[in-house]
């Protein structure tokens, strides 16, 4: 328990006087020859006269001379508590062993042992053991041993057998010496005669004497001028004192005034509050200073923080630092964006001053204005013209999700499906939606991507190519399968995918083929796509075929015959494109015959049910492959798509 010894309580700081000289000498002697002189040494006297100071001074002295000495300083109350706890835990023997191994036991406030026979008995046993082994015990007590109530007779005899020495109230000289020592310790200077005046007062113990010194120091500090003798007299006496102003003169009769003790009560409260506020303000300043130390070495101008540090706080410090750091992050993003397209301008000082973020944004705008615009989605494939049915519902839902939270949900998003099912359309819809959300989109086909890259490679301007697409907030690429077949394009795409994913920027791809088509791509691309979501758009279902037919017919005639719609919707189709192609055939035939498109005409054309007089019967396939036609230039002769035979069989069965 040596840790509890107050480091200030040494013999050097103990002010000796006639009333404590003997106790001090005995304590020095005991410290100089442990167990050999005055053992046990018991210092008695009223509270606040320096007994504890002497005990601790012995502890310091012994430790200074013999650092490895085994020593405990504790109060009798702590000793009793520890003993009870040890007994309760069944560790009485280890408690005894610990204390019996001591070279020095310093027991303070031994009067606490009265009416505790079991502790006295334990202490007696310990004392006998220590004395027997020539080790030292030193006690302090507010009473003389003979005055102990209910003290064990043997213990009283043992204590009396050593040296019992008393400390009494300090005399004037000692009081003055104490006041001078303490005033010097706290670096407080008083005018001539002030401390002498204070020393003349009557005090019950040294603590009261020191309290008077503290009052005088507080009064002088608050007044800002040295105390006069009369003020000092009032300050240490029980006369009126008003804190915060001049010391009051004699109070008027009947007027309630605060006593020095009262004023001390308030000043203690004030000191506590001041301390609490200062702690908070210090905490704020530390936070700001830390931020300055972080950002200044990185080249950022920290004037705003320094202003706050000087006391000009314009808001809660957490918010000041957070705003500064948010501005720094913003500058870094702007600087990075500029660096991608114009590296020579990325070192502009504006990017290192958080108070100039607006200027940095303008600079970025200027730079971007000078570069080529990003490819934008086609207006032809707007959101309103996309027909959502069961075959595309999952894909539409995925697009809605990524448009709502770009870069955070399905990233990358891959739309896969047979040619002509609407992947490109939906990809452009996604681009429109992202653009409407304020995202800068780059929406292009793989052909476009490869052409641009090829030209960049030829001109050795790959960096500009990367910067061009790299500044987009979202990249949407159609016909991904075409990129995957070219090594250089695949390399570049892998680079871009990584950058977009790292920046939580949205990627959307359209890929022709079945669900497993993704496996045919470059493995590096496949592994990156697998981290996102692949969603298929199925071949047109009946509802989609129906809606497409109505839309096409209404586009030409303003209305659609129900029989014709039902008939065409019942025809199986590989893709939306083939549905539209079929309707177009009917329209062409109707136009050639000079009659409106109808169900009968369609049956006639597709099934040969009612051969037309003016034409040869034509066997029509709904796959988009036109059979022989009367006019060699007819669209019916066009082969729009060559379907896979197996798929076709399945479709027709399903249809």
């Amino acid at each position, binding site marked *: 328990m040596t840790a509890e010894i107050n480091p200030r309580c040494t013999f050097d700081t103990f002010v000796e006087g006639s009333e404590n000289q003997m106790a001090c000498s005995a304590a020095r002697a005991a410290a100089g020859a442990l167990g050999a002189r005055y053992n046990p040494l018991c210092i008695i006297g009223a509270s606040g006269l320096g007994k504890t100071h002497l005990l601790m001074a012995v502890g310091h002295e012994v430790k200074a001379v013999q650092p490895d000495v085994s020593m405990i300083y504790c109060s009798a109350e702590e000793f009793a508590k520890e003993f009870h706890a040890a007994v309760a835990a069944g560790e009485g023997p280890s408690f005894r062993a610990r204390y019996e191994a001591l070279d020095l036991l310093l027991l303070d406030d031994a009067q606490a042992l009265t009416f505790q026979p079991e502790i006295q008995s334990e202490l007696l046993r310990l004392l006998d053991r220590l004395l027997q082994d020539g080790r030292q015990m030193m006690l302090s007590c507010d009473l003389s041993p003979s005055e102990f109530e209910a003290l064990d007779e043997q213990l009283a005899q043992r204590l009396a057998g050593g040296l019992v020495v008393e400390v009494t109230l300090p005399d004037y000289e000692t009081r003055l010496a104490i006041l001078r020592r303490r005033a010097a310790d706290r670096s407080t200077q008083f005018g001539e005669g002030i401390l002498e005046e204070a020393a003349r007062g009557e005090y019950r113990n040294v603590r009261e004497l020191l309290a008077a010194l503290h009052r005088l120091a507080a009064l002088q500090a608050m007044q800002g001028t040295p105390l006069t003798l009369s003020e000092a007299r009032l300050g240490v006496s029980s006369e009126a004192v008003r804190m915060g102003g001049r010391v009051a003169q004699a109070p008027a009769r009947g007027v309630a005034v*605060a006593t020095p003790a009262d004023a001390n009560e*308030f000043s203690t*409260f004030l000191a506590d*509050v001041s301390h609490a506020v200062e702690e*908070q303000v210090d905490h704020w300043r530390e936070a700001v200073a830390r931020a300055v130390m972080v950002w200044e070495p990185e080249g950022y101008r920290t004037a705003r923080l320094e202003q706050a540090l000087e006391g000009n706080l*314009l808001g*809660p410090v957490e*918010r000041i630092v957070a705003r500064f750091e948010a501005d720094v992050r913003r500058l870094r993003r702007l600087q990075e964006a500029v660096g991608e397209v114009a590296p020579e301008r990325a070192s502009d000082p504006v990017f290192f001053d958080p108070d100039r973020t607006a200027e940095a944004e303008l600079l970025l705008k200027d730079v971007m204005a000078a570069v080529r615009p990003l490819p934008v989605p086609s207006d032809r494939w707007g959101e309103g013209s996309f027909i959502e049915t069961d075959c595309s519902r999952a894909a539409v839902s995925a697009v809605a999700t990524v448009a709502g939270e770009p870069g955070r949900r399905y990233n990358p998003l891959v739309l896969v499906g047979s040619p002509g099912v609407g992947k490109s359309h939906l990809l452009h819809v996604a681009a429109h939606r992202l653009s409407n959300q304020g995202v800068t989109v780059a929406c292009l086909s793989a052909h476009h991507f490869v052409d641009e890259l090829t030209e960049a490679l030829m001109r050795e301007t790959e960096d500009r190519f990367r910067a061009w697409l790299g500044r987009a907030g979202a990249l949407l690429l159609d016909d991904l399968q075409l990129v995957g077949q070219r090594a250089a394009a695949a390399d570049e795409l892998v680079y871009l995918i990584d950058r977009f994913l790292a920046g939580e920027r949205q990627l959307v791809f359209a890929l022709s083929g079945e669900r497993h088509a993704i496996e045919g791509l470059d493995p590096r691309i496949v592994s990156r796509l697998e981290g996102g979501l692949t969603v298929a758009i199925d071949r047109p279902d009946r509802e989609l075929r129906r809606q497409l037919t109505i839309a096409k017919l209404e586009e030409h005639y303003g209305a659609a015959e129900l029989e014709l719609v039902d008939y065409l919707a019942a025809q199986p189709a590989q893709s939306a494109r083939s549905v539209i192609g079929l309707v177009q055939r009917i329209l062409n035939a109707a136009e050639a015959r000079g009659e409106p498109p109808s169900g009968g005409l369609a049956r006639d054309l597709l099934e040969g049910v009612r051969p037309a007089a003016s034409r040869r019967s034509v066997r029509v396939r709904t796959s988009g492959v036109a059979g022989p036609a009367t006019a060699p230039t007819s669209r019916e002769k066009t082969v729009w798509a060559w379907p896979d035979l197996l798929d076709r069989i399945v479709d027709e069965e399903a249809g």
Partner: protein
Amino acid sequence: MPLINFTTREITCKIVYYGPGRSGKTTNLQYIFDRVPEGRRGRMVSLATRADRTLFFDFLPLDLGQISGFATRFQLYTVPGQVYYDATRRLVLQGADGVVFVADSQARQLDENIESLQNLQANLLGQGVDVRGLPMVIQYNKQDLPPDLVLAPAELDRALNFRGVPTVSADALVGRGVFETLKAVSGLVLKRLSEDSTA
């Protein structure tokens, strides 16, 4: 009420003394008023009945001066303890930064203490304030009365202090424990400066 205003560089703490009737709330404020130097305190506003019961509330503003560049002010309020002044209590409680619950240590007043504490919690809840998050100190007043009339702090703790907030034994008439209570609640309130600071 903002606890700290960076624009005007002010720290203002509103502390409300709550408790049953005649528990000693006004006595606390009166003692503080008497001990605070004139330059540091404002006029104590007290509306009382002829029988010296608090009719509306007591209000004592304390100006602690400039601390670390902030003008620091404490505003001490009491509420009327009588059951029928609940509307006033709710009004005074609004925007409180800390609460001192002044409990009457007399054994026969235990039910009133509990009822008042429940009333405090209900009124705070009505204002959207969770009592568990509000700095609070319980003062066990009148501990100077004969032991057979009062409950010991440990017994009062069991009945009232289920949250384990700091407690102070007091005899407000002579001032024992009054400033200790104010210091304790001030410390709790000021600790929250950085947590709750708003512009």
